[in-house]
């Protein structure tokens, strides 16, 4: 088990190997289907993005409503494959890691290797557990999308497995 302080440096990504368990500490960004579509549109129109991709992590997630006295509701990963069409462009612009569940397609896989990035697996269905690992949450952009908005999260002891490392070793194969 390895403790990671975010942001995740590319030099550290090189050390990560498939199957390894990590605990993330720091800031991650949340985006899923609709947010990815919008990010892609912004990139195509050469417009500014709501956050810096370089060195950062996107977590594929759409939380349940926040109960009183909590930071966020249930907050586990969603299926990564749905973001496949949008991901290579983000990786090519410096995104360092994605967190989700399930395998990626060939073009994402290639883009991970090409960019020295990493795909991290969050424990699927464990929304209550992840809710407990999130210490702050704010909507950063696209708030009209509700649970599909882009959120900025601070996480502590956030457990993930290295699913596809920068050399292309894949836990799902």
């Amino acid at each position, binding site marked *: 088990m390895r403790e990671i302080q975010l942001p995740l440096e590319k030099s550290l990504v090189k050390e990560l190997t498939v*199957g390894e*368990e990590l605990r993330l500490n720091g800031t991650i960004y949340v985006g899923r289907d609709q947010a990815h579509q919008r990010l892609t549109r912004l990139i195509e129109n050469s417009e500014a993005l709501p956050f810096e991709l370089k060195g950062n992590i996107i977590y594929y997630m759409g939380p349940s409503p926040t109960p009183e006295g909590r930071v966020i*509701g249930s907050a586990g990963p969603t299926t990564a494959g749905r973001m496949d069409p949008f991901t290579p462009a983000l990786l090519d612009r410096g995104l360092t890691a994605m967190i989700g569940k399930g395998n990626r397609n060939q073009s994402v896989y290639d883009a991970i290797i090409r960019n020295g990035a990493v795909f991290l697996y969050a424990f699927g269905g464990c929304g209550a557990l992840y809710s407990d690992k999130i210490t702050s949450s704010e909507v950063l952009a696209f708030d009209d999308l509700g649970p599909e908005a882009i959120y900025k999260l601070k996480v502590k002891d956030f457990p993930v*497995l290295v699913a596809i490392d920068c050399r292309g070793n894949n836990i*799902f194969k």
Partner: protein
Amino acid sequence: MRTLKSQEVYIPLKDAIMQSGVVLPDDILLGIEKAKREEEDGPALSVLKHITDNLSIAGKKHIPLCQDTGMVILFVSIGQELIIEGDPLEKVLYRAVEDAYEKGLFRKSVVEDPLKDRKNSGNNLPPVIYYDFLPGDRLIIKGLLKGFGSENCSRVFMLKPTDGREKVIESVVSAVRDAGGAPCPPVVLGIGIGGTMDYAAKLSKKALLRKLDQHHPDPYYSDLEKEILDQVNATGIGSGGVGGKTSALGVKIEKFPTHIAGLPVAVSVNCWADRRLEISL
């Protein structure tokens, strides 16, 4: 004739929905424990341990065990000697779903139009409802909170009548293999065999309503359930799809007569977060 007030349906149904988003049925918990005992040290065991931790956090803090609290599917069996007084039954069912999602702080995951603008309906309505009739005066409602990470992996196969048992097994296993880690394995499989394309699909959902240890009464089919379970576990997909011994917790089959020219087979894939509910009034 027996009379039931609509409120007598609304309250237990709403409560059952709220409960099922937070606490899993006992048979599923036992299945997860068994998988944990059988798994060797490694990523898959870590997945199972996190699942167990997750379940205890959800229960203690009363938050949904998974953020995808699903689309509601209800199988409503109405006794023919039963009168429901007050609001029309469907309205009561809708209200129970809406209020359970609101009070339980469940995520509303239903869009009004599947294609045009995909605007969230804002109340998780409508549920998918199947009605049938029963002799007597009972009302039995069974249901699922169906997550879509797993639902997107469900499949229908229109096999040839001569394809036989092997091809049925192969089709189901191929669906699970294609799904990999996406449906949050270990999965639970509901399989509908026979009928028409749509009816097989309905049966596959009906099969998911049974407990893991409720095997098909016909030994031919209970054997088939076991054989499919063994072959699915032999894929090595494992918990979370990270490789391991348990890829499925259980396989349940429902069958129906079909046409001489066909053999429909539908597979409904459910995640380990197999959120079932049942009320009998």
